[in-house]
């Protein structure tokens, strides 16, 4: 896996650079073959299921873990073994990790005290940050009495008061309730824009990542699966794992039959599919591939469309409502499950009876072909 193409080769351009980083705990790899460049002002979200190595990666940046192989460089300088207290890369913790025996204000001053900033000065700077995050009136409270959202703001203030180049965030919103998450997402994204510093944000939640980040790193089993802009990763997953993890995708196994100017033809157990999306040039005929089609780009009709390609007939076996969105689950030949995501409103045109047959249309331009590994 190579670093993403947008980064230049100039070493100084990358604020942070991982080269072949590996971390082993005992015999098992937490992170391996990790190559990534993070530029100044980036908002990078590292995303993946639990145990994928994303938190270990973040802890390596903070100096709480040290790579067993490879290099981590900041501004070109190797920081592999540098002690955490010398890094100035404050971390916003999942459980906030506020000091319970200090007041909110004292918590925010903590880092400045280590910098030997004068008492008056650090009090002023800490108060300014509390005000800026809208919790100026909480300064004398004990952190144990705060709500989740308030505690998270204190944690942010405590980190940002140090005016760091890089802010690390480890699932900072996972303990908040849904309303608060949306509010904090907006605030964090605005904060990052206003400050112009680099945020490295670890999460298992894709909506958080896509809502805030300008680059997304998808990890699985210690390795990077894909790096890119949120929409790119969402629309053009490069691996089966990413297709399964991000969004709601239909995945159909198949074999390439032919390349033609009108697209690639893939033979599957559901019939032939044509894809007009550009594919990995190394995929020749007879290559084993997956067809990927996002559930929100598949259309459903009760009557068989006349001249459409990529039509599959399937039986409705279930539906799940999630607010304004409905996901219909179909079963096609050979037990293949297919999902279609529709707006609630679109449903009114369809009469939905269980076990009824429908025709699902996969537009060639919305149908991806990725290699099967």
């Amino acid at each position, binding site marked *: 896996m190579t670093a993403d193409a947008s980064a230049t080769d100039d070493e100084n351009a990358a604020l942070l650079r991982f080269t072949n980083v590996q971390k082993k705990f005992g015999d098992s790899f937490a992170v391996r073959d990790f190559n990534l460049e993070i530029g100044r002002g980036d908002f990078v979200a590292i995303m993946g299921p639990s145990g994928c190595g994303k938190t*270990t990666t973040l802890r390596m940046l903070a100096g709480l873990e040290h790579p067993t192989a490879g290099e981590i460089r900041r501004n070109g300088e190797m920081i592999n073994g540098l002690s955490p207290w010398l890094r100035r890369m404050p971390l916003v913790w999942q459980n906030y990790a506020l000091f319970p025996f200090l007041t909110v204000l004292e918590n925010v001053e903590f880092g400045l005290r280590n910098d030997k900033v004068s008492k008056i000065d650090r009090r002023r700077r800490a108060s300014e940050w509390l005000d800026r995050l809208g919790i100026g009136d909480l300064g004398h409270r004990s952190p144990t009495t705060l709500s989740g959202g308030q505690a998270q703001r204190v944690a942010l203030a405590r980190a940002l008061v140090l005016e760091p180049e890089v802010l690390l965030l480890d699932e900072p919103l996972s303990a908040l309730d849904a309303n608060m998450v949306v509010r904090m997402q907006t605030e964090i994204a605005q904060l990052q824009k206003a400050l112009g510093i680099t945020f490295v944000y670890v999460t298992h939640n894709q909506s958080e990542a896509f809502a805030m980040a300008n680059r997304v790193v998808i990890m699985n089993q210690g390795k990077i699966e894909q790096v890119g802009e949120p929409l790119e990763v969402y629309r053009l997953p490069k691996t089966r794992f990413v297709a399964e993890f991000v969004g709601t995708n239909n995945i159909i196994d198949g074999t390439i039959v032919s390349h033609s100017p009108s697209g690639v033809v893939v033979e599957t157990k559901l019939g032939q599919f044509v894809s007009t999306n550009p594919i990995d040039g190394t995929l020749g005929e007879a290559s084993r591939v997956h067809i990927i089609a996002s559930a929100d780009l598949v259309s459903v009709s009760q009557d068989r469309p006349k001249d459409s390609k990529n039509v599959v007939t399937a039986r409705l076996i279930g539906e799940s409502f999630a607010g304004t969105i409905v996901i219909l689950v179909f079963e096609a030949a050979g037990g293949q499950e297919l999902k279609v995501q529709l707006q609630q409103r679109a449903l009114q045109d369809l009469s939905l009876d269980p076990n009824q047959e429908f025709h699902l249309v996969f537009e060639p331009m919305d149908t991806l072909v990725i290699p099967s590994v």
Partner: protein
Amino acid sequence: MAKTKLDRAGGGALETGRASGSASRRAFIGVFGGPLVFWQGLFFVAPLIFMFVMTFWAVRNYQLSADFTLANWQAILAADYAWDAYLRSALGAGLAAGIATVVAFPCAYYLGLKTTPRVRILGACLIMAPFFTSFLVRTYTWRTMLGDEGVLNAMLGWLGLGPFQMINNLFGSVVGYLTLVMPLVLLLQLFSISGIDRRLIEAAHNLGCNPFQTVFRVIIPGARNGIVLAATFAFVLSFGDLISPQVLGGSNPPTLSILIVDQVRGGLQWPRASVIAVMMVVTLGVLVSLAMAFVYGGSTKRAKRA
């Protein structure tokens, strides 16, 4: 969750500071971890080892001299009075452990399960109070109370009973041992009974166990480890206690603890005192290992079965 633990335990924390100079890190570990090794090594482990070495030393003309002789061992192991004392100590300690366990259990049961949390905490605090009173003074008071002219015999006399001899015999010693161990046994039993999952008890009631059956089928098995541990502690404490047999037991015939004191006081017989002390340590070591094997072995077996 397990992952976080691994991080901290598995070396994440250990590795920090590698670059900032391992000298500072070594100093840090030395300052906080070193004192225990130094102090307990020098003043706990070394004395115990040295006491064992001392059993092979000789006493000549009231002077200790380094030697390798088995004479002390032979003298003690061949002496009937030593074995009598051994059995007397074991009997007294066994009685104390047994009585304390049986007597304390209903109390712990009541405080642990049959009362409000407020009363339970008050009870636990009361039980802890004796730890902060002088055991010496308490045994002394027992002596004045249990003596022929004491308060207890006076009260029994009003009822037309007695007087009974309650001190300077095994009864007196056991009262002393119980004074020493009762609070601890009660507290340990209370902890383990309070730790039983209440749903199990409710389930037992639900399945038709009456209170007695519940005690024997759920509570005693559930608190088994605590009960065994408490009884073991009671034995260890009583076995080594010097005060009860001396103040309340009349010190004659002697227990092992009194023998030790006699050997030390009566003319530098430190090697022989050491022999007796080593015998006691070995006895208690075997007993504690057996108890631990019972407690931990039993729980792994149960876990395997589960």
